């Protein structure tokens, strides 16, 4: 057994446990700063992860766990997201009554779950990784115990999460019951025998429903706006970026490693789900006034765009998903950093809280504007190139199935609709009817650095996409079925 393969995960878990222990000895007024230590630790692990670049793919625990370029791509993605989320949590600490060090360690444990998800090659590990993420998020969403909205978010997340876990575990049971296998590769080997076995297909369908909860995609998308709105800001950011990406890596592995033949037969289903998700997210976002709620719906819409890449059933499509997630990470984290800082100054999360932001802090205004422009898919930022890749991948399949043309049409419609609410946010920053408060918003150095990283990421990915595209292409090669 090669334990070095899971050394990154082990390091993350040790870091989480270490934080919990450190909490016992550190004086209360010092505890807030523990977050920086956690971020530093995660940063070191991220640095260490580059030692694994170029190492040939390998698996451990009877093929349950794989470490390949795809897993590494996502693990670095999660580590990077966690660093920024931890920095955000330190700035948010003032709003959390007690147990800030538990908050940090829960983020680390959620991170561990995501890292296992990136490497999961087995239905059992898939389930365990997802539950590790979901259960920590039950606590993270309701961490502001004194705030009703936060508690409400926690309960909603719990109920819908439990329901989708039920679907997931039932689906896994059906698949295991029919095939007797849990490992993706072994399922793939026998899947052709069960191609018409309805119980097996139902099992796969149930697993997909369970996963759609993580993606915030139709049919289990309803929780997203409420939970995004109610949760503490760092939780929402991690939910939007990390949790969604974990869902996608699992979806990619399941669909293209375990049941590629069924995936090809079901492409119409994937297309329709993508279309519904895009339309639902974008249309519902239009009338929203709460900033975090806008992101809840935008997150649904983005899950729809990402599903386009999955539905395209091609290497180009899967690489586009990876690239798009990269751009999405920087745009969303930049936006939540700004929201966090603005909300520290102004009570309320209404979009009008942004009034006059360009005078209160030009940096924050510029960062939020760039984030919106990127999410709206306007060049030269990352979001545009991501959408370009996704749409190209879908169009390339149009010759096979005309439904892809419809998908592309819906995606364009979604992009145009989304401009109205993303620009609504920009409008609120630069000109608003309400007389704005004009006190300057202080931006602590470390948050400023985090913002710069996000901005640089958006511009770098948009202007010089080549490196990441190559990385993504290399990563999805392990899923090569066609």
């Amino acid at each position, binding site marked *: 057994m090669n334990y070095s393969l899971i050394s990154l995960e082990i390091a993350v878990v040790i870091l989480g446990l270490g934080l919990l222990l450190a909490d016992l000895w550190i004086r209360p007024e010092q505890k807030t700063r523990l977050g920086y230590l956690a971020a530093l630790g995660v940063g070191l692990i991220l640095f260490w992860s580059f030692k694994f670049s170029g190492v040939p793919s390998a698996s451990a625990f009877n093929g349950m766990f794989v470490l390949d370029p795809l897993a590494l791509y996502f693990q670095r993605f999660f580590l990077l997201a966690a660093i920024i989320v931890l920095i955000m949590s330190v700035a948010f600490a003032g709003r959390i009554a007690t147990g800030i060090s538990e908050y940090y360690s829960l983020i680390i444990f959620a991170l561990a779950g995501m890292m296992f998800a990136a490497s999961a090659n087995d239905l059992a590990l898939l389930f365990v990784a997802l539950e590790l993420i979901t259960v920590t998020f039950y606590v993270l969403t309701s961490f502001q115990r004194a705030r009703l909205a936060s508690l409400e978010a926690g309960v909603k997340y719990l109920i819908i999460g439990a329901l989708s876990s039920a679907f997931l575990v039932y689906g896994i049971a059906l698949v295991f019951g029919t095939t007797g296998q849990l490992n993706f590769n072994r399922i793939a080997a026998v899947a052709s025998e069960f191609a018409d076995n309805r119980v097996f297909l139902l099992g796969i369908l149930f697993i997909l429903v369970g996963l759609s909860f993580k993606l915030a995609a139709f049919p289990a998308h309803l929780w997203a706006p409420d939970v995004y709105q109610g949760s503490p800001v760092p939780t929402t950011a991690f939910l939007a970026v990390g949790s969604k990406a974990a869902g996608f890596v699992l979806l990619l592995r399941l669909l293209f490693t375990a049941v590629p033949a069924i995936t090809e037969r079901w492409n119409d289903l994937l297309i329709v789900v993508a279309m519904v998700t895009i339309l639902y997210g974008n249309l519902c976002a239009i009338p929203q006034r709460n900033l975090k709620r806008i992101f809840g719906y935008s997150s649904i819409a983005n899950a729809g765009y990402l599903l386009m890449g999955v539905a395209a059933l091609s290497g180009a499509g899967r690489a586009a998903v990876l690239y798009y997630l990269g751009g999405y990470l920087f745009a969303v984290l930049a936006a939540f950093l700004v929201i966090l800082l603005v909300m520290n100054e102004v009570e309320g999360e209404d979009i009008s809280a942004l009034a006059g932001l360009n005078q209160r802090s030009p940096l924050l205004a510029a960062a939020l504007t760039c984030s919106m422009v990127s999410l709206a898919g306007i060049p030269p930022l990352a979001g*545009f190139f991501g959408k*370009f890749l996704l749409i190209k991948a879908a169009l*390339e399949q149009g010759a096979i199935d005309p439904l892809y043309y419809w998908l592309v049409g819906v995606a364009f419609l979604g*992009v*145009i609709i989304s401009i*109205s609410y993303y620009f609504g946010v920009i409008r609120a920053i*630069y*000109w608003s009817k309400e007389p704005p408060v004009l006190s300057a918003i202080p931006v602590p150095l470390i948050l400023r650095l985090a913002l710069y990283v996000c901005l640089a990421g958006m511009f770098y990915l948009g202007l010089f996409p*080549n490196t990441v595209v190559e990385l993504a292409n290399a990563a999805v090669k392990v899923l090569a079925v066609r």
Partner: protein
Amino acid sequence: MLAWTVYISFLGVLALMLLPAGNARAARGVALVTALLGFLIGLVSAFGFAPERGIQTITRTAWIPGLGIDYYLAADGISVTLVLLTGLAAVAGILFSWNIEHRAKEFFVFYLALIAGVYGVFLSFDLFLLFVFYELAIIPKYFLIAIWGSTNREYGAMKLALYSFIGSAMVLVGLVAAYVTAGSKTMDLLVLAQYPFPPALQNWAFPVVFIGFAILAGLWPFHTWAPTGHVAAPTAASMLLAGVVMKLGAYGALRVAMTLFPLGLATWRNEIALLAVIGIVYGALVALVQKDFKFVIGYSSVSHMGFVILGLVTLNTIGMTGAVLQMFSHGVIAGLLFGVVGRMVYDRTHTRDLPELEAMRLNKALPFAAGTFAVAAFASMGLPGFSGFAAELQVLIGAWSAFPTYTVLAGVGIVVGVAYTLRVLQMAFFGEAPEPVPEAAHPLPPITLPERLGAVLLIATTVLIGLCPRLLLSLIGPSFQSPLFEHVLKGGNL
């Protein structure tokens, strides 16, 4: 060297960002120097340019090799003409916005970013790059109108942004479809234009891409953003909007839509010519009844841009050359008209209502403005000796062989054009006040030097091109001999 028009504008943006806020004079200075340098680079390149050598590569490096996307700048006579126009409009626009004090630094940052994007579009021969520059020009426009605009600015800005984005989404659909059909190997316009796209694709992709671009050129019935956008925009922005941004649309329609899909062009050219002619006549008729000074000019832009589109779809060298010349000519004249309306008149009288202006007898109060506007009005009407005449005449000659009926209708449009131009000239400047004007109470500030300079620059250009159109025609004409336009001129017959 032409590539430096783009870089110098971006450098200007950077330099402005580093300036301390609140120093409006320095911001103006940096912006003016940048724009002048861009203009000079364009001018020098134009003199040294050999249009008969076709499309000349300026720089080319792999950008995203995996997808066959290059950073590919090149130029032919059409590009050079429009680069010159952009430089001219940029300089004049800055001269006409010399009085901007409110957030001047930001104003010029957006202004130069817009200019950089426009230069980029005119010089890109990689479709992806072209599209990126095209979009880059939209965002600053939105900010310019929404922050520094006047009447109904939020509505105007949002409407303009939405129309632009819908247009560019349509363009992108067609471009990606062409790219994927040709095997996802290259975005090089010159290569893709030689690819025999199947007729079915051309027949849907051509109208989608053409209209996507033409929305920005103010093609009827997708023009409605133009009058509201122009009216809402601050002077310099409306000069740029009418002067160069509308040309982006026409340029894209010519350079991309027509060359990529010549068969689709052959199928749809009649319908497009019809829309263009409706635009010419409709814009002129609506301009005839407007009460707002700026709306008159806004609708006149719709009418004049109709000539550009009509010229493009004639598919003969005379008409298409005329269309490009009309782009240049209208850019200069519309810039001048908007400069007079927005800066010389509105900033002083704070009204654009024609009956109110009629009572002010501005020819006495602002003789320079009246003189400038009179010249601009004559140029706009298409009087011989001004650039508009040479351009519209060429378009009509070209159109006569292709669409005789439409040509007659376009002629009607010119007559109505004379009517609304004279009407607005008379009402705005040479009104008959029923009672003596209380002039002493509110003496209008005199016309400043930068305004005079800007006006003289634009008037000189329109007269120069009017008297000697060969200067530009010798640049534009040979460009249509390049293989890029081969299929276009043959009406799609391969």
